[in-house]
């Protein structure tokens, strides 16, 4: 006993003295955003943060975790609770040192859970106003940077910029946030001189808004604040609305965010989200470097800046001499090539995500800002990137799908020369064999981008190849265009991949195809047996006995057909049972990842964002791995099918797992149209289907597999959108037979 204790002491001492030698624990930052991952403001804040943190992230000194509440799509308290559970399980063992919240909903979410989640973390806020923090009762608890944008400087300058202005229209959406902006504008517009009347167009449907904006007289202007939500409840990115409004409006549009610049908005007093992201990152690092400062301080807003779009100023005849002295003018390139350069900035930004050019380009871009006067040099640089990029890049006009430019990598990939390619659509060139002109036009009409979409192409020589395709919409010489980047991934579809996808395909389609072939294969012998039996009866009825050899022939046929049917059933059983039914302890996270790997290609092909939300550790479950994989695959494929009518940018499926007392709960949630109310009670019945080509067996089989495992499979009550299926699996420890199963 004594010796045991002394050994423990020695061990503890070793641990204590050794610890400084072990690499220092990383400094963890968790950022929580109110909105969607793709909101331009969020992208800009995140980019600003990473500008500062990237070197430290690379060395591992800092870890950055991110969560998006996506409140417009997932508004309920239940969604919040799920997110909290997720954060707890992901970060619980390694809590963040600093939590950053962006937006009021994120702040509210974290306020209610701070003590349960990460009580020791320092809390910094971004993109919040002081009144909103006071309203939440946290103004004295948090540090960070306020984002109080006053419209007063803008209102003061406006009459100088537009001397003829008589009417100012203030446009806002129907979300709470939009209404707060409206209220602020009502308050602050009083500084405008007498001669200008102010009208508030709040929460109008987008169509009406654009129609009315198109008919404004020349002495009017629009101040567009935000439009997160239409009156019918549809969620929008304010930047997209800005673009639509700018396209139709007959007068200049001003706005308070720099993310609007480039959409056709003229400019205004704006907040730089990127600047804010960088600033917050600095503050987070200050917490790391001076952990003793008990209170992080809440800093005043960054000074407002006037930023304008040169092209719009020119369009509306606003003299740059009338702008405030410290205004920043963007897009001020007169030549086509310089507009091209702006385009290539976007191209570069996208490339960064994927390729090793990341850092080189970022630095290039920063440097380029510094030497902005030397236009020629930068022009050459970006022309060089476009020309020498290993990625095939093309520029396509949104309105008619005509190729405007292609780079040498594109020529090499598709086999068409630049001269023969430009002024034609990809459809005319025949490089997209399974896409019609209609498809292309419909896609362009959505104005959405694509990320890592897998697409089959045909080269000039008629060879089929696979590409990974990303694209985004940009403005080029005043026209809306798509920058399309394509990477040849045919080699990735190599032999091994082909074999894998074959195995996958046969596993995926097992249920569907089996049922169809069962029906056919069993029906044939059954039909013949019945006719033979009926023939026998007909003979008996007629009173003319059949000759013995014919009786023998009939019976032989019946026997053979019976055996034929039995053979079909035996085969099916074998397939479904995998012959061996073994239950092994399996890590559910591994099982889910394996199933997701099988579905990855399918997800990319169908434009679905497939996401796993798994806690860091999950207890093992006692299951037949292949069968449960089959259930997961089946549920996710159902979700994919349901998403077919959802627009490409909004297709998402989330697979989440949570450990409960004696079981593990796995959820598959989609953003599709949901299950029709009249089908909800029957979807688990055999042969009930809502799909045009479904057999109605997938869910029935899945449920029976789960039940055989001692779990349950059910459909959660309908929420805002989409369907959620949930099933449970027994934990190894919770299973009464656990010891005997192996």
């Amino acid at each position, binding site marked *: 006993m004594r010796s045991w204790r002394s050994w423990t002491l020695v061990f503890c001492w070793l641990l204590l003295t050794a610890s400084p030698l072990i690499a220092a624990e990383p400094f963890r930052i968790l950022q929580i955003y109110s909105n969607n991952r793709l909101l331009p403001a969020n992208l800009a804040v995140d980019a600003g943060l990473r500008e500062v943190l990237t070197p430290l992230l690379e060395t591992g000194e800092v870890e950055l975790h991110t969560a998006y509440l996506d409140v417009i799509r997932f508004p309920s308290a239940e969604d919040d609770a799920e997110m909290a559970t997720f954060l707890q399980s992901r970060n619980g063992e390694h809590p963040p040192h600093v939590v950053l919240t962006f937006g009021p909903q994120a702040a509210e979410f974290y306020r209610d859970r701070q003590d349960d989640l990460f009580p020791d973390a320092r809390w910094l806020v971004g993109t919040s106003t002081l009144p909103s923090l006071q309203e939440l009762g946290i103004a004295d608890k948090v540090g960070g940077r306020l984002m109080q944008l006053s419209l007063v400087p803008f209102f003061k300058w406006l009459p100088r910029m537009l001397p003829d202005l008589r009417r100012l229209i203030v446009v806002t959406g129907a979300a709470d946030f939009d209404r707060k902006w409206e209220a602020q504008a009502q308050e602050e517009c009083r500084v405008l001189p007498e001669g200008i009347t102010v009208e508030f167009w709040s929460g109008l449907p987008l169509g009406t808004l654009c129609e009315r904006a198109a008919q404004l007289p020349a002495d009017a202007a629009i101040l567009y604040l935000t439009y997160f939500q239409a009156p019918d409840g549809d969620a929008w990115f304010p930047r997209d609305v800005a673009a639509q409004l700018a396209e139709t409006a007959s007068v200049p549009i001003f706005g308070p965010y720099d993310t609007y610049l480039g959409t056709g908005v003229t400019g205004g007093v704006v907040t730089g989200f990127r600047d804010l992201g960088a600033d917050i990152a600095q503050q987070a690092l200050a917490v790391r470097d001076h952990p003793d400062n008990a209170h992080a301080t809440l800093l005043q807003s960054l000074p407002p800046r006037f930023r304008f779009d040169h092209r719009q100023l020119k369009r509306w005849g606003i003299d740059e001499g009338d702008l405030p002295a410290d205004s920043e003018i963007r897009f001020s390139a007169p030549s086509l090539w310089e507009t091209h350069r702006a385009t290539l900035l976007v191209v570069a930004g996208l490339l960064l995500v994927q390729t090793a050019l990341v850092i080189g380009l970022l630095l290039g871009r920063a440097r380029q800002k510094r030497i902005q006067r030397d236009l020629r040099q930068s022009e050459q640089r970006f022309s060089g990137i476009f020309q020498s990029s290993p990625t095939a890049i093309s520029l396509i006009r949104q309105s008619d799908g005509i190729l405007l430019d292609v780079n040498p990598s594109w020529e090499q990939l598709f086999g068409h020369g630049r001269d023969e390619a430009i002024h034609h659509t990809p459809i005319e060139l025949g490089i997209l064999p399974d896409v019609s002109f209609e498809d292309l036009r419909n896609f362009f009409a959505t104005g959405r981008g694509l990320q890592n979409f897998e697409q089959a192409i045909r080269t000039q020589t008629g060879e089929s190849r696979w590409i990974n395709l990303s694209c985004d919409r940009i403005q080029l010489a005043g026209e809306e265009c798509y920058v399309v980047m394509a990477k040849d991934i045919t080699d990735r579809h190599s032999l091994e991949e082909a074999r894998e996808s074959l195995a996958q395909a046969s596993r995926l389609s097992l249920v569907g195809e089996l049922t169809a072939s069962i*029906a056919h294969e069993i029906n044939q012998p059954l039909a013949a047996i019945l*006719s033979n039996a009926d023939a026998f009866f*007909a003979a008996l009825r007629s009173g003319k006995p059949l000759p013995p050899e014919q009786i023998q022939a009939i019976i032989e046929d019946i026997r053979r057909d019976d055996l034929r049917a039995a053979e079909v059933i035996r085969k099916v059983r074998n397939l479904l049972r995998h012959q061996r039914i073994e239950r092994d302890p399996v890590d559910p996270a591994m099982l889910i990842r394996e199933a997701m790997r099988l579905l990855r290609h399918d997800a990319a092909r169908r434009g679905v964002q497939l996401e796993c939300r798994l806690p860091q550790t999950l207890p093992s479950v006692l299951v037949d791995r292949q069968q449960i994989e089959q259930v997961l695959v089946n549920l996710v494929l159902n979700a994919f099918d349901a998403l077919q009518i959802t627009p490409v940018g909004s297709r998402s499926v989330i697979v989440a797992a949570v450990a409960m007392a004696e079981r593990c709960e796995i959820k598959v949630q989609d953003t599709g149209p949901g299950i029709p109310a009249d089908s909800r009670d029957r979807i688990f019945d055999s042969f009930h289907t809502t799909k045009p080509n479904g057999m109605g067996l997938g869910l029935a089989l899945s449920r029976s597999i789960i039940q055989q495992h001692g779990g349950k499979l059910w459909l959660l009550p309908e929420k805002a959108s989409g369907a959620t299926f949930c099933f449970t699996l027994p934990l190894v420890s919770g299973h009464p037979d656990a010891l005997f199963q192996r």
Partner: protein
Amino acid sequence: MIRHRIGIADDDKSQLRALRRLLVLNDFDVHLFESAHDFLAGYEVAKLDCALLDLDLPDLNGLELQDRLRRQAAVLPVVFLSGVGDIPSSVQAIRNGAINFLTKPVEESALLEALQLAMAEGAKARVEATEKSALRKRIQRLTQREFEVLRHVIAGQLNKQIAADLGISEQTVKVHRMRITEKTGLISVAELVRTAERLSIAPAAMQGTAFAA
């Protein structure tokens, strides 16, 4: 007793044998075909009264076979017997004139009922075809001019209007109409109209001022 001739197209040999036994015992003259092309090659030679077709044939599917038969103007009632019947194909089959669409396995009573209906329909169609061909022969006896007058008559025109349209005298129109009655044996205008409809003869286009109002 007349033995009706029935042709069965199915790719399952066991099914073909069983159906032959059953239908022979029910006094049919049964002809078996293992593919759609066999059927197309042999149905006229066999002088079939009725066809019993599977949907799932190795070369053409049953619906395509039905379509070919229709285009060859075969007076042959069709009954489908299918293992994979779905609603769209059954609708298409019936719309294209199939008598019934049975699914495997089928009971003797249901099969016989459908075949009897098919025989009756086939008989009706043959009577109709014979009558039509007799009528057509009579119409073919008309001269070009008489046929022209006939088309005006069935358009509901009076002799006076016909004369004006064709640029002949009213008396000549009357002579033509008499000849028409003699050659076709059709006396009243109503009979002429009904016959023309059955043979798909188009009435003459309306001319002149009488119809301007």
